[in-house]
């Protein structure tokens, strides 16, 4: 056992750190909640990373990835988290990209991978449906083959940032008679195709992040089918495995805890600050201990990946604990700002804000983030489903 980085790894860390410091767009540092981000905000860091060749570290080199070791990838995530950079959106790079280079044909790789890497094509995920959440395999959006097209009918929901999307990767039912998992196919659909309608879903924090996507007689060329017809569930599961890596968000949580400490230091509590308050500090410490445990669990997972074992169902631990910690941070941050959790300044004209501020600046967006982060125990397979996975796959229950 050994916790030290090698000299090469330390050199790599310094290189990454310098690169972020010199290249991360200044204006992105001001952003407090995701809801204020424009399409360009999301893409600006992506494009810089693409230029450097670092936008998709996990991809194989021949498709535009890197040959980084798992330790280097870990350092990369760690440094980005510590710097508080905006993560590259997962839908292209982390989700559909690996499906395409693993299961797609040469034509599809040539056609789609460059746009994913450059950010020219914005992808969204067509998985969940109004009637199919945790039980994804019950999905009902139907694709019927007619000549060299599929005709797709149905609806998808919780589609993150579909309002910006050029493409959607969809799970569709191509065989209604087969068992649920066996009649599903994986289709790539151009969002500009007639018959697609995107309707916003406003969430409890007032933001527009997710959407409903309605598909009515949407014509999709058969060359947009990934792999084999009716084998989509295999690809979908492969993708969900990818979705889970990085979900522990350890370094980002560390950064958020640092921010919480700064807020607590800035919140007056009697003659001292909230940071000096015993009970608040105990809660902060408890959070840090939980995060340390998670960090070392993640490192152990990484070590077994280094030893050539893929991430197993144990990675559900990372999802459960990671999201619980993220939620707890937003909860304590909300507590920290006291009365100033109340103001809802979203969409307000803050023209004379500086002359008459509403509470301290650090309270802005704190309640919205708390509310928004409740999604974390729901998305990507709810935490209840993750418990089921561990019970079944790890404990054999």
């Amino acid at each position, binding site marked *: 056992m050994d916790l030290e980085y090698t000299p090469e790894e330390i050199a790599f860390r310094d290189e990454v750190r310098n690169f972020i410091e010199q290249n991360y767009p200044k204006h992105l540092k001001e952003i407090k909640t995701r809801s204020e981000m424009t399409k360009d905000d999301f893409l600006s860091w992506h494009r810089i990373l693409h230029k450097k060749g670092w936008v998709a570290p996990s991809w194989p080199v021949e498709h535009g990835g890197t040959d980084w070791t798992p330790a280097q990838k870990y350092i990369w995530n760690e440094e980005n988290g510590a710097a508080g950079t905006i993560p590259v959106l997962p839908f292209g790079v982390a989700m559909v990209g690996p499906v395409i280079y693993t299961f797609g044909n040469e034509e599809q790789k040539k056609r789609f991978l460059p746009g994913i890497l450059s950010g020219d094509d914005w992808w969204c995920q067509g998985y969940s449906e109004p009637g199919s959440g945790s039980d994804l395999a019950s999905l009902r959006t139907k694709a019927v083959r007619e000549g060299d097209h599929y005709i797709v009918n149905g609806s998808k929901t919780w589609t993150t940032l579909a309002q910006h999307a050029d493409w959607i990767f969809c799970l569709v039912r191509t065989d209604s008679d087969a068992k649920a998992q066996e009649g599903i196919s994986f289709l790539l659909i151009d969002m500009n195709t007639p018959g697609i309608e995107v309707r916003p879903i406003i969430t409890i924090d007032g933001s527009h992040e997710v959407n409903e996507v309605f598909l009515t007689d949407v014509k999709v060329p058969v060359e947009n089918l990934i792999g084999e017809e009716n084998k989509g569930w295999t690809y979908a599961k492969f993708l969900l495995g990818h979705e889970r890596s990085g979900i522990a968000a350890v370094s980002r949580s560390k950064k958020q805890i640092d921010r919480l400490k700064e807020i607590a230091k800035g919140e*007056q509590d009697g003659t001292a600050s909230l940071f000096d308050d015993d009970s608040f500090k105990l809660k902060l410490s408890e959070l840090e201990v939980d995060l340390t445990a998670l960090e070392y669990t993640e490192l152990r997972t990484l070590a077994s990946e280094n030893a050539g074992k893929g991430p197993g169902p144990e990675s559900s631990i990372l999802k459960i604990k990671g999201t619980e910690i993220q939620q707890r941070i937003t909860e304590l941050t909300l507590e920290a700002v006291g*009365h100033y959790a*109340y103001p809802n300044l979203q969409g307000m004209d803050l023209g004379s804000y500086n002359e008459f501020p509403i509470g301290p600046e650090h309270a802005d967006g704190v309640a919205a983030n708390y509310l928004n982060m409740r999604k974390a*125990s729901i998305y990507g397979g709810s*935490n209840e489903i993750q418990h089921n996975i561990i019970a079944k796959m790890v404990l054999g229950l």
Partner: protein
Amino acid sequence: MDFSFSEEQTLLRNSVQRFVQDNYEFETRRKITASDTGWREDYWKQFAELGILAAPFDEEHGGLGGSSIETMIVMEEFGRGLVVEPYLPTVIIGGGFLRYGGTDDQKNAIIPEIISGDTVVAFAYAEPQGRYNLADLTTTATKNGSGYVLNGQKAVVLAAPWANKLVVTARTSGGQRDEGGVTLFIVDKNAGGISTRDYPTIDGLRASEVTFENVAVPAENVIGDVDGGLPLVEKVVDEGIAALCAEAIGGMKVLNDTTVEYCKTRKQFGQPIGKFQVLQHRMVDMFMAYEQSVSMTYMVNLKLDEGVDERKKAASGAKVQIGKAGRFIGQNAVQLHGGMGMTDELNVGHYFKRLTLIDTQFGNVDHHLKRYSSLS
């Protein structure tokens, strides 16, 4: 021992319930909170007609002579409907200050105005630096001739945009956090030198940051004792807490009922998700959290007239229970509704938000645990 409600109390509940059912459907509430003013002044007038605004006041001032049980009933039903109109700040808080600390002139002038729905009161007590300490005051009231001059800033004054009167806590002597030296004033919101910045709140209410700049206040606007206002503030805030607990249990009940109903109808894996034992136990925990909260709400509302320490412990204990249960029930109601629980469209998130901010109002779980400990 008797936990039953009298016939009059049941009638009161029925009439408030009916009002909320008929006038406060969720979509109506959405329109109210999104409107320019953010409340329905005509509803407020209807509350006056229903006698709700008169509930706790003496008959000699036109009131109904009710107890905290009557206001508890009103607040619980308002909580079920997420009613935004300022019953708590006006009737419970503003009314409480007048009932316990007002001079005859103040009572005769203002209580009938509250009862008729013509006066709305907001309570300007919190300050940006003060957190939940009611005595941490930098707002000053300096003697000037026979009156006072107010200077300072008050934070997140709920319902202030709708109010025509403010009850203000200010320091008339002593250091910033001294228990002595606190004095209460009732002032017209349009008095010279008062400026407000209004904004909506996360839970659909309205609030203001209020600044006092050399606001002249006559001595007859002092409520209670000069320099000795803090015990009165604590008493009335404890009554506010008791009312807030009632509002909270109203909201919790709706969340629990909605969640159970949803889990009975939402099917995944070929069966209602309510059949899954892990969700059943979660809902049982939510149910128990609610029942414990109801108990604490009754307890505090029955103990408001006990000795000072007994009352304080009751209020802080109840606030701790409500804060913890509100968070647990709110978060899990969202969780069990899945993505739907995250939507603005569904009422669940709105109850969750109100419960979240109820914990903040008048001091959160930590604050009241400490207060409770200091009394034990």
